[in-house]
Every structure is written in C-alpha cells, then in structure tokens.
C-alpha cells in the first residue's frame, strides 16, 4: 500500500498541493522558532539571552504549534474527503478498509516528511533572521551564534508528522468504515451530522479559551505584560473550537444569513441551496476564515493594547516590554500570514474541486457569470459568518487582556478591526473568484467528465 501511496501521490500531486503548502509553511515556522532552543543550548550565553530565547521559543510553542498543527490537519482532512469517489472505487476493486487506511495514512506521512524536509533551509534562514532581530533590539547578546540542530529537527519533523498522521488516521477511519455505495452518496450529499467526538474536542478548545480568559483577568490582572502568556492563546483556542464546529455553524447561522441577503436570482437560489445542503463543503471554506479573523484580531489587538498601556506593576524593565513587542510583532506577523495563506490555500482547493459541479451547471444553462455570482454570494455569506465567529473568538483574548492592562473592557481603536475584516474579505473573495475563473476555463463538456 505504501507503493500505491507513492504512485498515487506522484499521479495527483495537484490534489495534495494544499496540504503540501500548509505543511511546508507550518514546518518552517515551527523549526525556525525551535532552532532558537538549539541556539540557546550553544553554551557561553549570558542569562538574559538564554531567558529571551526560551520565552520566544516557548511562546511560539503555545501559539504557533496549535495553529500550525490544526492547519496541517485541516488541509489533509479536506483532501481525504475530496477523494471519496476514488476511495469507493478502490474498495469496489477489493481494497479492505485497512488497506485504504494505510494508503491515506501513508500518503499523509510521505507528504509531511517531504514538506518538512523541504522546510529545513527556509527554517534556517527564518531562524537566523529571528535571532538577528532579537540581537538588533538588544535582547540577545551580539556574540551569540545561530545554531540549527536536533531540537529544531525533532520538533519540526515530529510535530508536522504527528499532526499529519493523526489527521489522516481520523480521516481514514471515516472513509474506511463506509460501504462503497455510502462513500459515493456521502461525496454527493455531504451533510452528515457532526460526530460527537468532534463536538467534544471543540468543547475542550472553547473551554480552554474560557480558562485562559479567566486566568488572564484574575491571576494576571495588573501584572503587566505577563498577561500575554495566557491571553494570546485565548483567541487561538476559541478560533479552533469554532472552526471545528464549522459544519454546525453553516447549518445554523450561515443559512439564516443567506436567506436575508442572497435570495435574488438563480445564482442566489443556488448559493442558498449549496449553503443549506452541502454544509461540509461550505464548512471547509468557513474554517480558515474563522481562524484568520480570530487569530489576527486577537494577537494584533493584544499588541496594540500593550503599546498603549502603562508600564506594569510587576517591575519589568523597559527592555522587557521592548522584548515582547518585537517578539510579538514577529509572531503576530508570522501567524497572521500563516492563517492568511491557509485561508487562500483552503478556499482555492475547495473551489477547484468543484470543477465538475460548475461544468454541470453550465451544461444545464448557467452562464459563466452566473456561476461566478453564485460563488461570490457563497463567499459573502461565509465571510459574514466567519467574521462573526472570528470576532467572538478574538474576544477571548482582547477583553481579558484589555481588562488586565487597562481596566476597560474594549480597546478604543476600531482601525485594526476594520483592517483585519477588510483583509479577510479581500482574501476570501479574491481566492474564490480566482479559483472559479480557473475552474471555468476549460470547456464544460470536458470538465464534466473529470
């Protein structure tokens, strides 16, 4: 089955593009930060340098790891789901559920290892850049030399591999357990209820978000920037929790928004039908919008609150604040960029997969413009839902941190909010429109048979 996995990967590398991109970027980020621990272990470092490097690496351990692992898992699950037809075919020619499982897990393992290996050099460059940044701001001694070693490799390869394999095992179990006819039906209808386990995991993430929010307000109130240690994770955990519930959110919330704003014309009618009946497909697009909005809002606001807040009472130095500011902007930047790429990546993969559906629509008489309008309307209602829950997720970071630092509930400035929502809108609409344009390029009679 591993041999089949290799051949299958080679034959349809395009289908794995989304997973490869997410894994590659995720591994780059993980290894870049983990290499700071290698650097720290280099010996001959003063205690300030050691301390800074540890904080930088560990903060990312808490934030980056979560979002990277989730991103890798989400794209892999998407690509496994999109192959229901192929899996049904394999089963019908005699593949046992175990063999199908080994194929899916084998592919995921290969993709993750290959992408993580490819990420080593970019991670070295990024890690070196991080160190230089820390040295330029005087937080790490000038004499410290950059090292990339065992910790970076172990964390980078290990975490990407684990995230990929766990996601694949879950996807494989779902795919393998179905009868071939069911798999085909599931591929077509795709509105199965959320599994209990998924709801439980989402609950755990939301509870963790609530927990960090409460800790931030109670334990870290008035303790200055130390509150960041817990506050930052709030929006990330909440965003992941909401993202896991995405199919439910599509059914309960997006459908309501749709009946308000997208009723007009045939395109609106189709968009409404797709939203109400292909909740899984729509959820795939909704997840990255929630993640991007929630994480970008949470972390950017946290930093802007910090910049405007009075110095804390716990006696941290100006250099300490400076330390966290630089660090935070780098992390916020990297994580926001990762979430943005995940957003575009997933949307494009989800849309390109609809080539056949678009072709069928065209053969039924819809013009290319009607198909594009349908996708745009879907994007708009998903965007509205994603921004709503992304904003809710951000509250888990923004409100506790603002209370802990300034004793008021909400920050004064709306500029970051407008900026993040505008970015989410531009990315969502552009990714959907671009991928649709591409999917419409080939003649309908050809595309329909793919």
């Amino acid at each position, binding site marked *: 089955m591993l041999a089949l996995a290799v051949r299958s990967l080679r034959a349809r590398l395009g289908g794995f593009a989304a997973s490869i991109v997410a894994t590659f970027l995720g591994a780059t980020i993980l290894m870049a930060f983990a290499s700071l621990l290698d650097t720290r272990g280099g010996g001959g470092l003063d205690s300030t340098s050691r301390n800074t490097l540890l904080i930088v690496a560990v903060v990312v351990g808490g934030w980056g790891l979560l979002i990277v692992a989730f991103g890798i898992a989400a794209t892999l699950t998407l690509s496994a789901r999109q192959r229901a037809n192929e899996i049904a075919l394999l089963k019908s020619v005699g593949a046992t559920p175990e063999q199908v499982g080994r194929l899916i897990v084998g592919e995921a393992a290969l993709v993750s290892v290959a992408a993580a290996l490819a990420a080593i050099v970019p991670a070295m460059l990024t890690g070196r850049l991080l160190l230089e940044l820390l040295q330029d701001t005087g937080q790490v001694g000038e004499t410290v030399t950059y090292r990339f070693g065992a910790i970076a490799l172990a964390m980078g390869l290990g975490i990407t591999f684990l995230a990929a394999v766990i996601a694949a095992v879950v996807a494989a179990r779902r795919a393998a357990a179905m009868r071939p006819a069911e798999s085909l*039906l599931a591929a077509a209808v795709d509105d199965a209820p959320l599994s209990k386990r998924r709801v439980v995991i989402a609950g755990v993430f939301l509870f963790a978000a609530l927990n960090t929010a409460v800790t931030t307000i109670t334990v870290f109130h008035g303790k200055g920037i130390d509150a960041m240690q817990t506050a930052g994770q709030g929006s990330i955990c909440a965003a992941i929790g909401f993202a896991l519930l995405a199919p439910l959110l599509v059914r309960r919330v997006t459908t309501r928004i749709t009946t308000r704003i997208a009723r007009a014309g045939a395109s609106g009618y189709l968009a409404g039908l797709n939203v109400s009946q292909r909740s899984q497909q729509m959820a795939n697009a909704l997840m990255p919008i929630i993640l991007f909005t929630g994480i970008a809002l949470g972390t950017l606001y946290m930093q802007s609150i910090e910049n405007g807040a009075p110095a804390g009472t716990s006696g941290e130095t100006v250099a300490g604040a400076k330390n966290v500011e630089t660090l935070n902007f780098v992390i916020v930047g990297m994580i926001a960029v990762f979430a943005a790429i995940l957003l575009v990546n997933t949307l494009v993969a989800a849309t390109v997969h609809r080539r056949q559906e678009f072709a069928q*629509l065209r053969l*039924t*008489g*819809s*013009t290319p413009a009607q198909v594009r309008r349908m996708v745009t309307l879907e994007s708009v209602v998903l965007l509205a839902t994603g921004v709503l829950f992304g904003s809710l997720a951000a509250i888990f970071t923004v409100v506790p941190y603002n209370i802990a630092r300034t004793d008021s509930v909400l920050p004064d400035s709306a500029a970051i909010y407008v900026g993040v929502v505008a970015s989410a809108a531009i990315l969502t609409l552009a990714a959907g429109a671009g991928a649709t344009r591409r999917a419409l390029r080939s003649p309908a*009679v050809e595309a329909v*048979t793919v």
Partner: protein
Amino acid sequence: MTDIGAHGRAAVRLAAVSKVYGTRDNTVRALDAVSLTVPSGTFTAVMGPSGSGKTTLLQVAAGLDEPTSGDVFVAGVQLRGNETQLTEIRRDLVGFVFQQFNLLPALSVLQNVLLPLRLAGREVDTAGAKRILERVGLADRLDHRPAELSGGQQQRVAIARALVMSPTAIFADEPTGALDSRSAADVLALLQEAVRDFGQTVVMVTHDPIAAAHADSVLFLADGRIVGTLASPTAEAVAERMTHLADADGDPRLAMAGGE
C-alpha cells in the same frame, strides 16, 4: 439565413462544418465539411465506429464546441459568440441528455428539473415540471437526491430537465450507454414519446443498433463524413450497415476512421 422559428422545417442545420483538433503537425480532422439538416419533430440517430466524429458532431451541433469552419444553426439562430452568448442561445434552444446524466447532486429531482428555468430567468413552473416528471414516471421521487435513484431513473430526470425548457432540439450523447437493457428501453421509449407526443426534435448519438432502431432515421458517420442514411431503421439493418462501415475501416484508405 432567415429565422424559420422553432416550428419551421429545419430544427438544426449544419453547413460545411469542419472540426480539426490538435497542433499544426499532428492534426485530427474529426469533422470534414459536414452539411446536414435535421427536420423539426424528428428523431435522428447518429452512428459510426469509434473515432468517426459522432460525439464531435453532436457537440458542435449543440453549441458545446465551436466548429473550426462552417456554420451551425438551431431554429435558424446561428450558434456563435462567447461562452456567455452561447450559453444563452443553448439554454433557450437546446436540451441535453448525457451518458453520465450530469444531474446536480445537491439538488432534489424537482429542483434539478426546474433549474434551467431559474437560470434562464423564466417563470418557475413547478406544476409543469411535476407534470413532466409524472410523465417520465417519477411523480413519487420529487424530493429524492440523484444519488438515491437508479441510473435509469436519473436518466429520466435528465430527460425531464431537457423537456422543461421546450427546446428546439434535444441532443442525447449515448443516453443508454450506462444503463441496463430494460432501463435503456424505458429511456428510448421516452425520447420517442417526446418526438411523437410533444413534437420535440431529438438527435441521439449511439453505438447500439437497438437504440438507433428507435429513431425515425439513422445517419452513418465515418472518418468525419456522413457516409449514409437509413430511414425507418430496424436493428438488423443498422447492424448490417455498421458491419460494412467496420469493413471499410480495414481499408487502408479509410484507416483513420477506426482509430480511437
């Protein structure tokens, strides 16, 4: 070309239509200056060996593909323009039935049948669509999804979807190719009924002599050209003619016709 309207004599007319595929050094002439007229209210079958150009003929005649040269008219309207203009012409004048049904999986049977009306911005005639679905024997399946139906049932939905627009011509590409013989017979009977009872025009590509025998006349295609016609066909007569075409394939002069 004057507009002779949907009820004029010629539903579909091809004038010296050629279709060439491939690059400069490696061209395949799928259609070679084909001219033909399909009279309104008739059932025409198009037959020929693999690679004879019958699917290309259907796609060009239906406005799904552009001819390299020559003109195509449906109801006197020339099929030309960009994809949006072609779609608008197609959805008013042409209905399709494909081998793989091509129903939208997220839509119910009734929604699939009503979809062309919605896309064209016409009045959504639910009662009319239900009447047609009753006619094709699916009155009790209105709210089912395509994946819950048999192949024969799906193809009957596809026929209902084609009929709902009252097009000038319905083009069917191997409509029975994916069906068992009983479902195939049902589908062919429906297409015949559409012609006899509703005055529809049907053009069907098939490789099955039994399917072709349901038509009023058969066009034989080889090497991208029309090489014969047969009125009031029987399965035996069609099969015999096909055997001759296959023999001609062995002729080095006609070797191209046999290629896949």
